[in-house]
């Protein structure tokens, strides 16, 4: 049953992917500026320009361009980066691992620490802890990543000298970026876990669980946690895509390679093929995240499994 559900979800991704590809393709053309301008030497003639435009196929009809592009995508052919003059696939392959490591660690950090903090604050109802948690959650969800990154660099790298200021060499250079991205996630996950647990505690069936003579701990881990996990899984799934894309500014501040830095650089240079490939990657990550979240939820909740299959 869960396989069937997964298959249905996958089918639904086809129209979504199509719309996304059109949007990504079009968005780039709506941007002002032109990569050809970056390639031309000062004083080039209009003929030189037209030749370059034709070389990259930019003189053809938009619809034709779209289908050529999407056709190439399907064959794993991402084209040549116009400004960087290298295959886009190489650029992506070079940068993606950095993003995945950073994103994966930040995801792991925010989900484990967030769920632990949320659970603790839901069961230990101490006014002081409560106030601390609320302050922490407020900070976590409002402090911008790039600013937090700067503060962390100032404190841990410049003052204490524990971690490198920037770069991507070894685990030490990962600590601060992971903390930066994870911080907001921890706060978000902690909040959702906390609220979900408190909501679950108020459900009618909890009374009956106590009436069965089960201990509070058994009730928490065997009955309340699965309920609380449902919304947490949704949030986490949405964050999979967000973390990859949201790492953009953080990668930039820490001077790390990655999909985000690549995207920002390509955007500045109007390097269409690179921008498109990066956006496509990020959109794919969001879609995959949503898919994983939906399937995880369905495997946990029999009601969802049945409603949609």
């Amino acid at each position, binding site marked *: 049953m869960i396989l069937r559900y997964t298959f249905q979800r996958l089918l639904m991704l086809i129209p979504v992917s199509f719309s996304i590809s059109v949007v990504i393709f079009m968005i780039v053309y709506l941007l002002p500026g032109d990569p050809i301008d970056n390639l031309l030497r000062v004083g080039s003639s209009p003929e030189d320009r037209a030749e370059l435009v034709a070389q990259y196929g930019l003189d053809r009809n938009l619809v034709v361009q779209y289908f050529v592009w999407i056709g190439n995508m399907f064959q794993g052919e991402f084209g040549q980066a116009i400004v960087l003059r290298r295959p886009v696939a190489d650029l992506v392959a070079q940068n993606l691992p950095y993003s995945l490591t950073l994103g994966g660690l930040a995801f792991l950090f925010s989900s484990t620490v967030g769920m632990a903090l949320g659970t603790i604050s839901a069961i230990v109802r101490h006014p002081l802890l409560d106030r601390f948690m609320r302050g922490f959650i407020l900070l976590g969800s409002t402090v911008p990543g790039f600013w937090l990154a700067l503060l962390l660099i100032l404190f841990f790298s410049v003052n204490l000298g524990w971690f490198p200021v920037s770069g991507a060499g070894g685990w030490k250079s990962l600590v601060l970026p992971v903390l930066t991205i994870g911080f907001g996630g921890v706060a978000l996950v902690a909040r959702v876990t906390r609220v979900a647990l408190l909501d679950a505690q108020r459900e009618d069936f909890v009374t009956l669980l106590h009436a069965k003579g*089960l201990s509070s701990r058994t009730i928490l881990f065997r009955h309340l946690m699965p309920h609380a996990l449902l919304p947490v899984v949704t949030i986490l799934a949405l964050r999979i895509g967000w973390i990859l894309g949201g790492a953009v500014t953080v990668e930039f501040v820490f001077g790390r390679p990655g999909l985000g830095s690549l995207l920002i650089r390509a955007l500045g240079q109007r390097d269409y093929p690179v921008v498109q490939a990066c956006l496509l990657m990020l959109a794919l990550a969001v879609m995959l995240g949503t898919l994983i979240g939906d399937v995880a939820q369905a495997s946990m909740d*029999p009601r969802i499994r049945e409603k949609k299959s």
Partner: protein
Amino acid sequence: MLNVRDLGVAFGAVQPLSGVSFAVGKGETLGIVGESGSGKSLTAMSVMGLLPLSGGRITGGTVEFDGQDLTKLPERAYRKLRGGRIGLITQNPMTSLDPLQKIGPQVDDVAKLHLGLSDKAARDRTEEILGTLRIPEPALICERYPHQMSGGMKQRIVIAMALAADPDVLIADEPTTALDVTVQAQIIRLLDDLVKERDLALVLITHDMSVVAQTCDKVVVMYAGRAVEHGPVEAIFDRPRHPYTQALIACIPRGLDEATRLTGIEGTVPTVVNYPSGCPFHPRCPRAEAICTTARPDFSVEGDSAAACHFAEVADAQPA
């Protein structure tokens, strides 16, 4: 078996329940009746020792079960009684079961916990109990999820959970309120049979006087967090002495005659924060006089029954 004396409950500064007393023995059914908000469910929660869940605490009185006072029982020992010797049946079967778990494990838990049975033995027991509750194909039902079953079926599952460890006392808190009328009758009959077959002591909380008349041996009538009248069911129905009891009985629909209109009691139950002074029922009482607004009436005992009304003796003379 179960003997509650002068029970009082408080949530912070408010005291929604006070001076509630009743006793129920093996093979006996005690009805607790009253409108919504009269403190019936609170009484059930107090006996189960589950008040702390909602932030309440017992402020006075005793809950004596099998010779020991439960109000002084430590939580660990209390857990052995809950589900083990005292079973609870809750109001709304639609929300009483964990929606994420199959029926089987939810019932198995009780026997595993209190009788120390293995997974396999507990499942056998579950299927056997489901069978005695007239649930068709117990083995199949065990593999179902709660949302795949009807309300009546779910209530039987809840009853099965309450019975799984062979308890001495069963507390049923409005077990039929959320069910269809036809199913209501089945569940009530089922409970009635169980009391006789298993020699259970049943505390049946309801607002349905006709259910009380059919099944109970004794009744406690509650109003605004207090017991206002109690006694054997025949005595209460033949000669109700408290005006509130009289009003409740007058509300029972009789027959299907179209001419008889459904009646209710004028006014509404007071909320905890504005319980009236004196006799709590005086604002709605047809017989209230000056004394009722100031002095709380004591129980006027007559035979096995007692009514807390200043005019209980006078009421004797008047037919309900």
